[in-house]
């Protein structure tokens, strides 16, 4: 029997990790080991589950015992509350990655690393180009929150790539996930009954459907594609469009008051924001995905708009749902028609 590939997937108790592990495990030649600190809520299919903390050196033993050759690191936390606070979030993201990479570096069997990074590394500012390519760096370096964590994670990953040149290292910068069943700060924000938004700005949002994210991760796990890549749908939608499709009324908030409002919303446990995500919802940002497409031939099946539509389809529509808008418009039109009729 040819030696089976052994793939360690971190962060499998979350949606993306579980979907990825399940899809990868359908391949008979691959043994999938799923890792997380809490048991998975989703079915992992043929994948094994190992309960371990990546922040703990015991992870090295798992890698050695299973003879892991490929590590797919998906255990990143984007918002503080889901991790139990900002310091805990930072520990999972940064210290967790450091420990995991330290364990990988010493493992003999280790040949390949795939890391999930994020569009957050580009920050968001009014001085941004309309689409970032992989070679550009943030115009306004993210100094807090998930953006900063992602930058640090990437720098540790680069460090490992330097020290172990024999390892194939792939970093995928994923756009915000959007689609049915996605639970993120963006989807929760769009689902607020009345949505506060920064006045006078209409952010461009670029999404990625989870199934496309899984496909992209599978592709780079199965094939060797060295480097850092942006992964997203090519089109953008604006925040206004998203809110109108959701039928949500909005309240304008001056830019200076936005952090305060975001804090209030966080404290009410409505939406969990990390500080840098407000800028992204103000100025918007986009990624150029042509490098990934030209190197791997990967084309996302969902556009940003289609992904959003899918999410809207399963969401409860707000106060300004299309039916209400239509009936209000009809009423107004009727009044105006009678005005014309009196003319005769």
């Amino acid at each position, binding site marked *: 029997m040819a030696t089976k590939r052994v793939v360690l997937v971190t962060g499998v108790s979350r949606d993306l990790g579980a979907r990825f592990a399940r899809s990868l495990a359908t391949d008979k030649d691959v043994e999938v080991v799923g890792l997380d600190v809490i048991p998975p809520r989703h079915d992992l299919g043929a994948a094994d589950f190992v309960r371990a903390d990546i922040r703990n050196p015991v992870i090295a033993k798992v890698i050695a015992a299973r003879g892991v050759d490929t590590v797919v690191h998906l255990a990143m936390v984007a918002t503080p509350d889901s991790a139990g606070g900002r310091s805990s979030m930072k520990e999972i993201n940064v210290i967790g990655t450091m420990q995991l990479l330290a364990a990988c570096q010493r493992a003999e069997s280790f040949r390949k690393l795939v890391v999930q990074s994020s569009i957050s590394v580009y920050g968001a500012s*009014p*001085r*941004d*180009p*309309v*689409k970032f*390519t992989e070679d*550009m760096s943030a115009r306004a370096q993210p100094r807090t929150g998930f953006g900063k964590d992602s930058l640090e994670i990437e720098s540790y990953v680069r460090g490992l790539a330097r020290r172990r040149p024999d390892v194939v290292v792939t970093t995928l910068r994923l756009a915000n996930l959007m689609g049915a069943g996605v639970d993120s700060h963006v989807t929760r924000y769009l689902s607020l009954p009345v949505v506060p938004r*920064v*006045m*006078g*700005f*209409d952010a*461009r949002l670029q999404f990625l459907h989870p199934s496309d994210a899984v496909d992209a991760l599978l592709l780079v796990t199965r094939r060797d594609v060295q480097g850092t890549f942006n992964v997203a749908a*090519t*089109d*953008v*939608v*604006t925040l*206004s*469009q*998203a*809110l*109108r*499709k959701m039928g949500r009324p909005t309240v304008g908030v*001056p*830019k200076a008051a936005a952090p305060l409002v975001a804090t209030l919303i966080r404290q009410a446990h409505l939406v969990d924001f990390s500080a840098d995500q407000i800028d992204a919802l103000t*100025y*918007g940002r*986009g990624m150029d995905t042509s490098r990934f497409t030209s190197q791997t031939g990967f084309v996302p099946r969902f556009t940003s708009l289609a992904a959003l539509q899918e999410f809207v389809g399963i969401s409860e529509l707000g106060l*300004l749902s*299309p039916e209400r*808008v*239509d009936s209000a*418009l*009809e009423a*107004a*039109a009727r*009044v*105006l*028609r009678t*005005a*014309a009729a*009196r*003319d005769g």
Partner: protein
Amino acid sequence: MGEAEIIDFGSRGQASRGRRRSGRIPESQGTPTPGDEAPGFESEEVPQTPALGALFSELARLASRSLQSLRSVPVTQLSDLAADPLHTLASLAQTLGVDWEDSLDETVTFIRKRLRGDYAIDEFGFDPEFTTKIFLPLLRRLADSWFRVEVRGAENLPADGSALLVSNHAGTLPIDGMILHTVVYDEIGRHVRMLGADLIFKTPYSHDLARKTGSTLACQEDAERLLASNQLVAVFPEGFKGLGKPYADRYKLQRFGRGGFVSAALRAQVPIIPTAIVGSEEIFPLIARAPGLARLLGLPYFPITPLFPWLGPVGMIPLPSKWIIQFGEAIPTDELGSGAADDPMIVFNITDQVRETIQQTLYALLMQRRSAFF
């Protein structure tokens, strides 16, 4: 280089001191009447444009003309309008030949689409539907009735393919950019994609409007992305230096940045079309820039015109100057080869060539314009 000794009247030092205009040299006094400016000027010399005092006496004449035409307003219809606004509106529409029912249906469909978010935008946030159906019709009124824009050299605008329009920039607020967008769209049916300063994208509402109407940040990456996707791109290399220059320096081109626009055009090998806009200088004659106040507000300058901020919102109405927009012959860049963008000498030469062309065209147009307002 003729621009060193240009402005021959309205000393700059005085402008910021206040509104004293006594120490003016005589040639700028009388209102220029048709025909009295064209002769006597060599083509090298700077044509005369009205100084502030003359500008306002002309404006007064314009106002009295419009007041006369106001006398013919039908008073009875106005009282009808107050009594039953909807009915009057409907009958007015009928007399104007508008089908009330049809346009009503159309409007309802349009509003429904907008409120549902069913419209397409491109990666820059450009919303063609909003631009052609709301933004441009409003500006068209401004361009046709208020500024009475006269377009020359429209045949130099390409019907397809990329090109870079390079224009002078003036008028305190970037109204010249919007008017340029309107006239180009009306001439050849293509949208001009503007490149704007980061202040535009930092400021609320201005960010929103700019992105919706197809503008993007003036940076190398975005310029190249637009030029690579067959777009007509416009750039104002003077930036705030041109927009916020005092009225005394009108029609005197400022420094053209660092030639970034030329290297973008060279890299994409697209032609450069020098564009001269006459009329934008007079819409908000800037007499002072209040640098202290500007710093406080985080603006490049705080405009003080004879009407603003003294008259509040009324002072924000642009003066109805007469505009002429001339599109020059395209300067080809494709024969220079792709390496030319990295040769600073070529870039500087083309920058100078474009700048000189625009400056000379401005002077030529000013000589032909009868007055700032008629």
